[in-house]
């Protein structure tokens, strides 16, 4: 659902930009559209930055449960 909203948000943004790029937009209309566009950008940016980057590895504890630990790369050559 979130993605659908995102997808339609970015489509709407593209529409607005295209409309604004046409010459015959009134000042009032343009400001209204600009405001909407800024809101859409905020929404999309927020959506894209929601998660923090984490890289974990699952480790089996003695009682058989799985635990997340930060992953340190140790690559065998």
């Amino acid at each position, binding site marked *: 659902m979130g993605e659908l909203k995102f997808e339609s948000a970015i489509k709407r943004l593209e529409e*607005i930009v295209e409309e604004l790029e046409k010459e015959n937009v009134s000042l009032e209309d343009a400001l209204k559209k*600009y405001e909407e566009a800024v809101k859409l950008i905020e929404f999309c940016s927020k959506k894209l930055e929601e*998660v923090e*980057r984490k*890289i974990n590895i*699952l480790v089996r504890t003695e009682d058989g449960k799985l635990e997340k630990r930060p992953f340190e790369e140790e690559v*065998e050559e």
Partner: protein
Amino acid sequence: MNESRYVYTVTELTRHIRIILEDCFPIIWVEGEISNLRKPISGHIYFTLKDENSAINAVIFRSEEMGINFELEDGQKVLCGGKITVYEKQGIYQLQVERIEPLGIGSLQLRLEQLKKKLKEEGLFDPQHKRPIPLFPRHIGIVTSPTGAAIRDILKVIKKKSYNVEVTINPVRVQGELASLEIARAIEEFNQMKDLDVLIVGRGGGSLEDLWAFNEEIVARAIYNSKIPVISAVGHEIDWTIADLVADVRAPTPSLAAEMVVGEKERFIERLSNNKIRLQRTMEHKLSSWRMELDNLITRLNIYKPTQLLEHYKENLKEISLKISTYLLHLLEINKEKISGLMSRLENLNPLTILKKGYSLTYKLPEHTIIREANILKKNDLIETKLFKGKVISRVEEVLENG
């Protein structure tokens, strides 16, 4: 005894042998080494299949040959699938080969084909079962070796893009006896965690034997049963493993699998920033052109402001009045003589001027009308006579009409 002897004809015997042989070996697999390979113009392939102790003639008919995906050569060990047939004319039996595979991976290939067929019939590869990969997965689960090339490649892509995404690795062996069990279990464990958006299951490239775990039924079923969409990433661009066939999406390499999960996000970020720039640019352009238009209007308005207008009119008036007076002066100058002429004529017309010369005006009283003819008067009428200086009032003594 002689009477009970049954004598076969050669044909009968050969046919009998043929029936027995062909019934006994309808579908068989036999392995051996190719020798005496012949490919006559007929298009059929003849060779002898042998091992240390024995040999058997073999033929691949042209129609079967199409299925061979490797080059046959003498000395090559192969696995042949087919049936025993008897060539009655010469009384020889031969292996009629319908399938042939290089030995080693051949038997694996066979198992693979059999499993593929079975799972396909069960619907594990059905396209309608495949789910889309989410556009912005937040939490990616990776089932692979923690020390292999695959994890390194995947993390490299994710780090390079530096997007915010959570990655959890469920470490497994990716080859050997236990690999398939571990892979299947890891997929199930991720499904129990419930907060994952997509799984990448894979390993780096290798031989068919190395990749074998990804061809096992238990892995195929774990992928099929996963509620989380699965990307298979077995590093082998050409051959599809069963895991590839069951997975929702198949990535040819682990790096490409990572691209698939974060690449979409990258494209969106690009799209977003692209639009941001365009929006900013077009608004700046618009605002500056509006600003210019406004400045222009202000300048024009200032010109027509009321005080400005009055000043303007005043200025105009001044100019006009100056023009008029100049014109008048000019006019006066031109007409000076004319005017003085007129003045003297007026002077002449003034009755007082005439009186000055000694003429006088006479009025009848009390009407005070000018008397131009004597006959309007009678004796004893009062008259007033206006002289240059003063008046005289007199009484008429006598009227002389022709005087």
